[in-house]
């Protein structure tokens, strides 16, 4: 009996609330000022959306057009057929895209593995042990942030050359692993949230320090690792600077440098080049749509630390 009256009154409250909200909206809509601002908001959002979409839209259309069609039609018109995959076929074979995806994947996987290993290890040692020189290590990581790698490559080139790594994937792998400082902060901050008591309990059970790192800390760091994997994957997949400088040989092209060379390989075959652009954009867009929430969080975290 009581339950029924409660549910009725709840429903009533909801109904009244909804009516009030509608009334508020109606009274707002009568104000020209409110209408004006609503219009401004939607118009700017729509204009921005068009501005974001038009350039890639034109490329997508071009990718399905034949060269004659491309020059005959307006660039914003749809192609005769969306089943014309000739451009994609051509670009994949003649543009070394298979090789590029292979090279980028190898670089990405090795870099990620070591970035995570080293990053978590440094964070573990720095947050759990007291030792002489700890302050200096922390200061070193802060100082390293003041040296943007874009400025020092003229000198880095000498080192890579001395190590005999020009045209080797390990040139860029080492740079990706060695020059990433932001992740140390992400890991350190996350370590602070893992209670020391867990370590202590494991130690009493007879676990070694390495066991604590490997079996307790590493699994608990999973969310931080996910953040770093996302940030680094975006960075490495998109990076153009390091492979351009250190791996000029065709056998070592990455996704970025392969695409960069398209204007030399295909000249002004814009339809073929467009197909190449689309192929390279697909993994990014897919990954983004799948991991949207994590990417937003990761980008925010990475930027605030940096």
């Amino acid at each position, binding site marked *: 009996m009581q339950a029924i009256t409660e549910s009725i009154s709840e429903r009533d409250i909801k109904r009244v609330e909804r009516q009030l909200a509608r009334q508020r909206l109606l009274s707002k809509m009568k104000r020209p000022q409110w209408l004006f601002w609503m219009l401004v908001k939607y118009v700017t959002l729509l204009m*921005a959306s068009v*501005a974001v979409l038009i350039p890639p839209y034109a490329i997508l259309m071009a990718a399905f057009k034949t060269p004659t069609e491309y020059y005959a039609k307006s660039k914003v018109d749809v192609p005769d057929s969306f089943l014309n995959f000739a451009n994609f076929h051509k670009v994949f074979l003649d543009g070394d895209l298979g090789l590029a995806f292979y090279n980028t994947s190898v670089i990405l996987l090795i870099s990620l593995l070591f970035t995570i290993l080293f990053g978590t290890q440094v964070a573990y040692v720095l947050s759990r042990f007291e030792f002489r020189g700890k302050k200096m290590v922390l200061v070193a990581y802060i100082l390293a942030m003041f*040296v943007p*790698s874009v*400025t020092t490559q003229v000198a880095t080139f*000498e*080192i890579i050359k001395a190590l005999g790594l020009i045209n080797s994937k390990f040139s860029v792998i080492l740079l990706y692993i060695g020059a990433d400082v932001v992740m140390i902060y992400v890991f350190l901050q996350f370590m602070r949230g893992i209670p020391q008591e867990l370590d202590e309990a494991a130690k009493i059970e007879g676990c070694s320090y390495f066991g604590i790192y490997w079996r307790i800390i590493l699994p608990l760091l999973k969310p931080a690792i996910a953040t770093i994997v996302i940030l680094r994957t975006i960075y490495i997949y998109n990076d153009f600077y390091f492979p351009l400088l250190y791996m000029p040989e065709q056998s070592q092209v990455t996704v970025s440098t392969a695409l960069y060379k*398209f204007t030399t390989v295909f000249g002004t075959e814009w339809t073929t080049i467009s197909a190449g652009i689309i192929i390279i954009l697909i993994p990014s867009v897919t990954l983004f749509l799948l991991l949207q929430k994590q990417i937003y969080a990761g980008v925010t975290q990475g930027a605030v630390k940096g």
Partner: protein
Amino acid sequence: MLKLSLKQQQRVMIISFLFIPLLLLCVFSFYPATQLFSLSMTDWDGYAEVKNYVGFENYQSLLDDPAQLEPFLNTFYYFAGAVIQICLALWFAILVNSKLMGRNLFKTLLFIPFVLNTVAASMVFQIFYQVDGALDNFLQAVGLAGWIQPWLQDAGVVPWSLVAASIWRYLGFNLILFFGVLQSIPQDQYEAARIEGAGEWQQFRFITLPSIKLVFGLQVFLAFVGSLSVFDIPMIITKGANGTKTFVMATLETAFTFNDFGLASAMAVVLLLVVIAFMLLQRLLFRESK
């Protein structure tokens, strides 16, 4: 098996876990930075065994020929663009944070260019800006044919074309930073303000603005350092033609095309010092509030 005491175990852990990362940090971060200074005092061509010490000659030649510093001026176009970009990002962040219909879709759309491959995104614009390209055709289609410009050919227009491509690509980054802060403002503050009869502008002025001031300032600084080190977009779209060369491009060209690593190092040192000065300034200004 050798049984180590806890203290010894700790020492082994510290050394084995820090050794390689610190070595990498030294080799690829600190050593190049110091090496840059010593290279800038030589005439090294990138190949020779010996590097001849030439003192401050390279710096002198930078001062003697200010044309070499001209690419620095392009920084200001990108910085101006970045300020516009940050303001636009704030406006759109406020919109997608309000109760507008389709806000998530708009957020996704505006953010997506930020995760795209740099070369692909830049080439999209290289094709988009062509004479009789998609932009021209689009303007014709919507009846704005009069706005058509030689987007990449005219030295007066091309910096802004590149800046627009840069805004297109990086707006989402600023948007998501602002959005994060806006989400953390408690809604009841706005509720209370509304009950007190505050309009939208007043709510923005007295609740939103104070909360985002810090992030706004930080982003302007990040934008400045970013503008100094622009490379990808002009390198891919124009290859530096029509006065679009940036300072990083000029430095790399001096080193790798003209084989003058000494002069290139001197240029890099100048850039490094400017960047460090601005980052220190940022630290000082934002220290207590962090």
